[in-house]
């Protein structure tokens, strides 16, 4: 079995319309069976995810959002940042990284892919626009997972 170096955390609710693009992306990434890549699907980001995150060199968060700008999706590096709001039942990628840094003294490199969503209405139907955007995001994710591994940052 390959050592896991990359963790993909896909976030979303498959019963809330385009919010399902994260879990759908995860299903496809899993089917690639990429060596050293572990895929998790979660409804929301919760503190105990740092237990998985601390084991790997890099983390890729995938989520749906309405804040991804004009394009089909947005990819960006995530740095640890303590949120001004209080920790509770759901978290942000930056906050999780900050928790991990403060507890373990180091963090994996992290990226967030936000796929542009049109509708978060109840139901399992994903809009055609979001499905198309997911395909474009998957091209980026495939290239990302095929790239050379980065080194763990020490902080």
């Amino acid at each position: 079995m390959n050592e896991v170096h990359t963790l993909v955390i896909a976030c979303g609710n498959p019963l809330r319309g385009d919010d399902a693009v994260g879990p759908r992306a995860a299903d496809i990434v899993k089917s690639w069976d990429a060596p050293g890549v572990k895929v998790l699907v979660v409804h929301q980001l919760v503190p105990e995810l740092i237990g998985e995150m601390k084991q790997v060199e890099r983390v890729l968060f995938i989520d749906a959002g309405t804040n991804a700008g004009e394009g089909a999706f947005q990819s960006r590096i995530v740095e640890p940042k303590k949120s001004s709001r209080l920790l509770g039942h759901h978290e942000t990628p930056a906050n999780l990284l900050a928790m991990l840094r403060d507890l373990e003294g180091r963090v994996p490199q992290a990226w967030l892919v936000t796929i542009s969503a049109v509708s978060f209405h109840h139901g399992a139907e994903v809009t055609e626009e979001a499905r198309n955007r997911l395909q474009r995001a998957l091209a980026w994710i495939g290239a990302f997972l095929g790239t050379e591994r980065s080194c763990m940052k020490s902080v």
Partner: protein
Amino acid sequence: MAKRIIIDPVSRIEGHAKITIYLDDHDQVTDARFHVTEFRGFERFCEGRPFWEMAGLSARICGICPVSHLLASAKAGDRILAVAIPPAAVKLRRLMNLAQIIQSHALSFFHLSAPDLLLGWESDPAKRNVFGLIESHPELARGGIRLRQLGQEIIEALGGRKIHPAWSVPGGVRDSLPTEARDRFLARLPEAHAVARQALDFFKRFLDVHTEETQVFGNFPSLFMGLVTPEGDWENYDGLLRFMDSTGKIVAQCDPLEYERFIGEVVEKDSFLKSPYFKPIGYPDGVYRVGPLARVNICRSMGVPQADRELAEFRQRAGGVANASFFFHYARLLEILACLELLERLLPDPELQSDRLRAEAGVNCLEGIGVSEAPRGTLFHHYHVDKDGLLTRINLIIATGQNSLAMNRTVAQIAKHYVQGARIEEPILNRVEAGIRAFDPCLSCSTHAVGQMPLVVELRRTDGALLQEIRRDGGASRE
């Protein structure tokens, strides 16, 4: 003219709510209210669905404690089928409920309340959070995360996922526990025990020097309700429903299926929470509390040795029955320890790997009631179905709703003690909120009734004179 101070939203709880504090002409607090401002409506929109779907549907009520709804719903379904489920299925359901209690209590104590206790109510609000906890007590913060992870992973191993596992069904459960997972969890129990002990030791040291909190954080007589075994010991899945008063006297005990003899429900005009009360006393005086504090108060014993030793000390510190809502935190830690001991006892049972997991039957009863203990308290699912198994009536009684009258009293007591004048400073605001957080309310779970809360819109002049009142419940509009 009377004045109000409004805290909106209340932070570090699950859901959306606000608190109103009422002041008289001399700026003295006269009353305080906790209002739930979100609305869900599961009781109504699930009508017409097959009862078979209800476990999966009602688990969607909450992403925090879906297991509780899953179990209560499946138990109601067992009644409609009129079956006794296989013994292995009972043990597996119990296992999942223990895991649920551990993970939920760990989040409540370590992440939501510990920053107040460890860093102080007056500490810098920017640091009074989990990051401040990590900075000052990294081992406790790490341990809390590990405890929650253990509970979540047991749920995932049984149900296939951590959130909304469609695993417990009418008649039993879908899958057993793999031996690989059993061994993994057994290996992690010593570490979990150490975390629970560390947190208990910390909390007891805290109590030694913070006696004021135990006196003013919701310290009032009320009834306590929860499940107990037939012998009167701590229970979380089955058994008898017990009501105890603040002196330790058992005032009622019954089969949980007879709950309507003792529990009535009202809807107060300013909250989407239903407010259950003890029928023999009536509303509003029939206040009772549920959840860890109630369960620990009403039981004869925890049924496991380490937790029993802690229970003896708990009662010694409380002076008998613990009436202060602040002791919810203490009871939560005691229950984590008990659940870990019960896991240690249950996990090696070979029946957890059985393939006899589900009783098959059709609709044999037109009514089913399922009762179990959620982390926050006793949970009731009550269904009526037609001959085809389609739901015709649903009633859900949720822990947070049952604590709503007690939460009002808690907030009022804290406000009367700490609020001086018409201005409220941040540390005082935080203490008022902390009174609510002691109950660890889950508002997503507790706001399902439709059409019961009269929606009132008032149109007033700036001088306070009422111009128009419009009621949604068919009442007359008046001017």
